[in-house]
């Protein structure tokens, strides 16, 4: 019995070895505050993007956990994002596998989609193997917002970095300040981050620490945030509390089943969302 367990663990570890950075279980090369400070420096020289559109109804596509490597499913998401009805694409972390070659592939791919307004925020896999050193020079800030400006008003989209398991005190303070200054002048507020706020049953993927969840919930209620969208768990889970919908998206990995992406329709009064299944390869 012991031999079977040992062999199973050995096989499991060897099969995952290319994807897992075990040393990261105890230490991140850059912690959340350090990445936030680097992001703020980036934001100082790269002002938040404002997308001006002529229609008050529009669509934003969200996906997560593409784990590039290969990108056949992500290509389908990019195709959907290229349609004129789509205003932006937001990818909620674990976009790559952390290796330099994953980032090379991703950067090359994104250079082919000039017509798409795409926005990334990193997940834990993007930080593996010192991945932040690859991510940051290529894609810039991990904590930022962009605005979609419509005739009926502006909507704000806030992307948060939870790649090392916490938002960190600096990012939380920034979020609180951003919400306080923006909420009275915008119609809708959507937050995207990699880690989950709620969870569906027992799980092996960790969410944000409970103290941070409580702070985030309080902010969502105070500023009537519309959506908090995340990935990480790889399995869809929708819930709502107060005025906020909390959505965990399916993954978009080529080597997993039941992939999908999320389409959110923003309008003058209400929002709605729908998942689009991606065919298994």
């Amino acid at each position, binding site marked *: 019995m012991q031999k079977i367990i040992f062999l199973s663990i050995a096989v499991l570890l060897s099969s995952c070895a290319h994807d897992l950075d075990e040393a990261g279980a105890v*230490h991140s090369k850059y912690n959340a505050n350090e990445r936030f400070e680097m992001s703020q420096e980036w934001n100082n020289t790269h002002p938040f993007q404002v997308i001006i559109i002529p229609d008050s109804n529009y669509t934003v596509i969200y996906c997560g956990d593409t784990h590039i490597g290969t990108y056949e499913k992500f290509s389908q998401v990019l195709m959907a994002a290229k349609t004129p009805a789509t205003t932006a694409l937001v990818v909620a972390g674990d976009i790559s596998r952390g290796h330099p070659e994953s980032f090379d592939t991703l950067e090359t791919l994104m250079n082919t989609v000039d017509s798409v307004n795409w926005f990334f925020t990193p997940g834990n896999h993007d930080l593996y193997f010192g991945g932040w050193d690859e991510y940051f020079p290529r894609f810039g800030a991990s904590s930022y917002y962009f605005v979609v400006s419509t005739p009926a008003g502006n909507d704000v989209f806030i992307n948060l970095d939870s790649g*090392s398991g*916490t938002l960190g005190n600096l990012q939380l303070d920034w979020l609180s300040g951003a919400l306080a200054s923006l909420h009275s002048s915008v119609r809708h507020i959507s937050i995207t981050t990699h880690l989950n706020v709620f969870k569906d049953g027992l*799980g092996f993927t960790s969410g944000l*620490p409970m103290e941070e969840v*409580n702070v985030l919930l*309080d902010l969502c*209620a105070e500023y009537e945030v519309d959506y908090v969208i995340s990935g990480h768990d790889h399995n869809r889970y929708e819930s709502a509390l107060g005025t906020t919908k909390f959505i965990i998206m399916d993954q978009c990995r080529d080597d997993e089943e039941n992939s999908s992406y999320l389409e959110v329709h923003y309008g003058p009064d209400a929002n709605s969302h729908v998942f689009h299944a991606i065919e298994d390869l």
Partner: protein
Amino acid sequence: MNSLKTLLIVVPLLLIATVVSGQLQIESFVTIGQNQTKSEGFLSTALRPSYELSNWTLGAGTELAVLNPQNTVLDVWNVDAERKFILKKQEYKLYGGFFYRPFSEYFRELNLVFEIKTELPHWKFMVGNNSRLYRLSAKALEQWPEADSAGTNIKKEWRNLLYSFSFYLKTLDHPWNVGLGISNTNGFFFNQETTPMLFSRYENKITESIQLFAECWLQQAGFANLQAQYYGFFVKGGLVWKCRK
């Protein structure tokens, strides 16, 4: 009406008799710490009286956030019950508790906790489940009356695994002891199962009825993500006073 009068007389008498025949225990402690939501630090104080009656222990508790409360000074309160039983010569304790945390003016966090505990000469073990419920406060319901009909007034997470495993240098009946452990709860606070905390504990029975203790807790964020960082720590110190034997 008569039966009500009888109840009004009998129940308090039963309670008094219960208290007199049972053992009163008071646990009091102070917690000082720092984490990513309270980077400037926090300080709280807690009181947990309980009565032990043969195999049952009934208790209640409250924690007051003296420094940097998130919402109110009354951080959390609880009521609980514990039942001892023997199974194959090993003593176990079944614990059930209800915790109420008004952490936001918009939300209340309710935790329904069930645990089973046992001890070996050098070890303490606990596994359990925490059902976490978030519900809107009265103020929030007033602000968003449609939440009731939309079903967004409450969020339930029924299954959250709880655990605590600790090893002690001396046998657990020794007057003083030092232990190391891992847990996702510290009694008033319940993490998800994937967010363990490491702790060390020193305890010293200074008299037959008074035990002093001190604990250090380290919180790590994102441990199960394999991309983790320091999240916070806290230090807890206090006493357990067994008032009557």
